[in-house]
């Protein structure tokens, strides 16, 4: 498998097209946090919103445009994060970042399991310039969660 094939796995191309969680939503009663992130190189943007219900992330929705890697990454993020607790989200976030640092090497089976479709991004690690694309949504998540936690219910 060439580096390119490893990066653009079918599951990534599919997520980029399907964009799970696309369309901002603010469920009533939840604490809402939002973040806007821009990739200055290409002007790609993501606006990501989280809805916190106590310690649980009740909703993750987003808008924006970008390359297939950035779009697919937020789509996968939505699937992974929605419904988790803050602690679980933080763990998933760290695991995804760690995946990027592997430079294309396969992750531990445990991490692989945990990240599910997210493991498909392993090939991105071979392209340092694209890691930023894959992390754009995750940076927005981190920031949005901080905002949400500042909200008094």
């Amino acid at each position, binding site marked *: 498998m060439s*580096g390119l094939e490893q990066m653009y796995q079918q599951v990534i191309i599919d997520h980029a097209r399907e964009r799970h969680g696309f369309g901002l939503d603010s469920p009533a009663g939840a604490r809402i946090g939002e973040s806007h992130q821009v990739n200055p190189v290409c002007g790609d943007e993501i606006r990501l919103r989280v809805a916190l219900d106590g310690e649980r992330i009740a909703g993750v929705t987003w808008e924006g445009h970008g390359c297939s890697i950035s779009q697919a990454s937020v789509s996968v993020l939505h699937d992974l994060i929605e419904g988790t607790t803050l602690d679980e989200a933080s763990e998933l976030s760290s695991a995804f970042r760690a995946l990027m640092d592997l430079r294309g090497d396969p992750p531990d089976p445990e991490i692989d399991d945990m990240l599910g479709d997210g493991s498909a991004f392993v090939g991105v690690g071979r392209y340092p310039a694209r890691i930023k694309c894959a992390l754009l949504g995750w940076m927005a998540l981190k920031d949005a969660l901080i905002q949400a936690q500042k909200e008094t219910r």
Partner: protein
Amino acid sequence: MPFRDVRADFPILTREAREGGRLTYLDSAATSHQPADVLRAQEEFVRLHYGAVGRGAHLLAEEATEAFEAARSAVAGFVGAGEGEIVWTGNATAAINLVASGMGAASQGIGGSESRGFALGAGDEIVVTESEHHANIIPWQVLARRTGAALRWIPVDDVGHLVLDGLDSIVNERTKVMAFQHASNVTGLIHPVGRLVDRARAVGALTVLDACQSVPHLPVDFAALGVDFAGFSGHKMLGPTGIGALYGRRGLLDALPPSVYGGSTIKTVTMTETTWLGAPARFEAGSQPVVQAIGLAAAARYLSALGMTQVAAHDERLANRLRTGVSSIEGVRLLGPIGGGSDPVLGLAAFTVEGVHPHDVGQVLDDAGIAVRVGHHCAQPLHARLGAQSSTRASAQVYTSDDDIDRLLEALSGVRRYFAPKGAS
């Protein structure tokens, strides 16, 4: 070929591409490579003649100073500048900023009465174009903010040409300075400098030319163009990184206040008062990019030896092959006109591919050993105007061959297929 195949002069071009095979470098509008001659000139200087310039009485200082000033003359000659009309800067961006921030300083009374002609205030206007690189927009936005002057701009049409119908109203008696590019790094268009300069002169406005993309590819003579200031970069014209230059008409440069302050710029300094030297010294604060100046002069010599008329002809021919080729691929949109003839363009092509993000386009090309640039190329307003958020850009230099263009065109033809839903292919 207007000149011999020069590819062998550029050591880096022989290295392998990512997945092995030939490297097709089409990112020269971002930055170009240095020929061995240019590397050698720098290396030899460092190994034999380096010392502090403009200050020492010892042998190395003397040799370094002579070489440094000879480099300035060589570069001046290359762009039609006279003695004292070339100031070294870090890059083209710094050159343009030096004019804008000098005007900002003058507006705050720095530089005294001789600098008053550069002062702006409320009621004055600054004009740029919608086609500019950020380096020729933001400094003027900030200058407007500092002085209360208004920022206006010449718009661009759907294709990318400057719209000059309203020129006389946009550039008027209130216009104090007009900054515009010689050629666009996105559409490749070479703008009608003469027409713009004429209008600026008619209303007594200063002109500042962003010559970053023209100097590497065209014979450029700033005196003949009649602009007051111009900036360009070494690293786009086969020279080293870390150096650029500002051209300024002599009388003007001597009156523009400096905006970076330090050693070698002054006549006298006390704790409370400083008097400045004339140009170029007043602008070159601190130790200079000496080795890079030597390298840039060597690059100018290399280009002159090829002949800038021949370089331009080569570029024009590649422009035609590239832009015709790109625009004839299905689902690919070329930004700017195909151009050529009375609609002159540089040897570059920025384009979008239907349904595929530029980053993804660039990645597939890279996999085929083709280096292109992706993004907004520091021209967000122009991209916005052309209805593209970003684009992929291929760009040529003297070492670019027909074969390079053909490889790009072939790989580009396959990009949409690569990202098409797999069932559909």
